[in-house]
């Protein structure tokens, strides 16, 4: 109060106004009670993240970090179906084909935002109610608190469209229990509701009908500390009875997953699954065989390297990978088959794992020199 430079106090003045809605309305940035609330507002597109949204969220996040009257930051979706179904990759694929620079800027700024969330100085609460995939995971999983509901649905499905689980997937996925992250990354397996909490994607689980009350309770806190916020979330989490008795959907398969996915090559993982021979393993084998071979190899190496890197190092690595994928074949083919024509039968090139050489892989991971992502 009264401290800080003139520029800080003038931005505080703007904060006191109740709502700052941008012209397009794609994202709402509002001060409510003790919190700054980010609402991704493209319900017809399942709140898919666009560059313009990122360009609004990032500076506001930075401002709220410095604002002494903002004690926490909440991010949520709108429309009731999705928190955020991903980045707007259709736009990126189209821009690339039109030879525009969107893909360079989009991934760079998205990853900078992801990093900002990870290092956010204020408690960050993501209300991940509904579909949370790809880019949606990026703006939530690196935050301090993630609250899932019975409607939540998580996946990193990128290997199915010729990409890889980016947005820091190379950081958090290998850090999940056992080889769960490797399994999720290669197969795009969906986790629902309480399972997201068991897996560690979500920190808390509440009933969706209680979410509004939870938000109200958070907003009405007075100068809360991180513990105060955690206490509120804990209370709602403890109160939720939904699916409490149900065991983790992958419980009985974790041993298998840990065994089969402890390999250094995708070919070995596939061989392990084949040898295991159980219905689960065979099913996952079928899933993996539909994915882009290039993506599978990129993903495995990305996670293996990411397991010992910092988040920033991972994001730098991932930025190189995105730019290489933009110039390649599979990403555009994946977007066509899965998002545009929806025929669900992409024709990958190369079509076979053995045609993806270590040399090819090295090219994907190569530094971009002056174009490398810097924080």
């Amino acid at each position, binding site marked *: 109060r009264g401290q800080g430079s003139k520029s800080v106090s003038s931005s505080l003045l703007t904060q006191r106004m109740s709502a700052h809605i941008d012209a397009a309305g794609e994202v709402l940035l509002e001060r409510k009670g003790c919190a700054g609330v980010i609402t991704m507002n493209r319900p*017809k*597109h*399942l709140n*898919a993240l666009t560059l313009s949204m990122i360009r609004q969220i990032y500076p506001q996040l930075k401002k709220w970090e410095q604002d002494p009257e903002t004690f926490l930051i909440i991010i949520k979706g709108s429309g*009731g*179906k*999705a928190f955020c*179904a*991903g980045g*707007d990759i*259709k736009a990126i694929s189209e821009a690339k084909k039109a030879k525009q620079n969107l893909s360079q800027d989009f991934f760079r700024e998205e990853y900078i935002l992801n990093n900002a969330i990870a290092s956010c100085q204020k408690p960050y609460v993501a209300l991940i109610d509904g*579909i949370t*995939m*790809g880019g949606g995971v990026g703006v939530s999983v690196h935050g301090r608190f993630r609250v899932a509901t019975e*409607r939540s*649905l998580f*996946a990193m*499905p*990128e290997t*199915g*469209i010729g990409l890889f689980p980016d947005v820091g997937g190379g950081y958090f996925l290998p850090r999940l229990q056992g080889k769960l992250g490797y399994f999720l990354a290669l197969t*795009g397996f*969906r986790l629902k509701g309480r399972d997201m909490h068991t897996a560690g994607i979500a920190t808390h689980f509440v009933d969706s009908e209680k979410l509004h009350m939870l938000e109200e309770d958070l907003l009405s806190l007075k100068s809360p500390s991180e513990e105060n916020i955690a206490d509120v979330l804990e209370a709602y989490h403890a109160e939720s009875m939904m699916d409490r008795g149900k065991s983790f959907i992958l419980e009985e398969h974790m041993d298998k997953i840990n065994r089969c996915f402890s390999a250094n090559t995708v070919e070995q993982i596939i061989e392990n699954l084949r040898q295991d021979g159980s219905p689960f393993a065979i099913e996952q084998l079928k*899933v993996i065989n539909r994915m882009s071979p290039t993506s599978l190899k990129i993903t495995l190496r990305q996670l293996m390297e990411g397991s010992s890197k910092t988040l920033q190092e991972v994001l730098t690595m991932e930025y190189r990978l995105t730019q290489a994928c933009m110039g390649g074949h599979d990403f555009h083919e994946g*977007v066509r088959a*899965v*998002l*545009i*024509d*929806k025929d*669900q039968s992409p024709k990958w090139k190369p079509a076979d794992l053995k045609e993806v050489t270590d040399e090819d892989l090295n090219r994907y991971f190569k530094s971009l020199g002056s174009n490398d992502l810097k924080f």
Partner: protein
Amino acid sequence: MASLDRVKVLVLGDSGVGKSSLVHLLCQNQVLGNPSWTVGCSVDVRVHDYKEGTPEEKTYYIELWDVGGSVGSASCVKSTRAVFYNSVNGIILVHDLTNKKSSQNLCRWSLEALNRDLVPTGVLVTNGDYDREQFADNQIPLLVIGTKLDQIHETKRHEVLTRTAFLAEDFNAEEINLVIEKRYFSRENNQIPGFPDRKRFGGGTLRN
């Protein structure tokens, strides 16, 4: 009179769930006394005053397209049926509360209709496996109607209705559970109280 805007609503569901009875009730304001198997597609019309009593009141033709058939049909039959799925404004999914299979098949019915006409938003990377994902992209309003509630014993009703509530949620649809009770047959002219006498415009039935 001035031509009216039309709204096309599909009525889908397994054989025998009560689609024709439902359509007849909505359009003719009467209970269908002698239901028979619908062959092909039967269309009936209801004239509806949208936002009646307000300044925005507007009269619409609601065309109810009652498409017969089985969800397990051969693909050649399905592709023939697909012509009925064009330019749909809404879908009513009908299932028989006494028949669990008819509820389970609703998913396949709606996918059959939606896949025909859906303009991709290009957002969701779906592998076609998870219910909530498949319908997340959908902008066409869905209504799930459960029939023959009266034929379920009082004690079992709660269990059945809980099951169907989850169903409607997966589709992100609104849900209504109907009773077309036998006692209505005893009334004069089979009129249903509470359904005001609606204007009918000779909406014939197209029978193959």
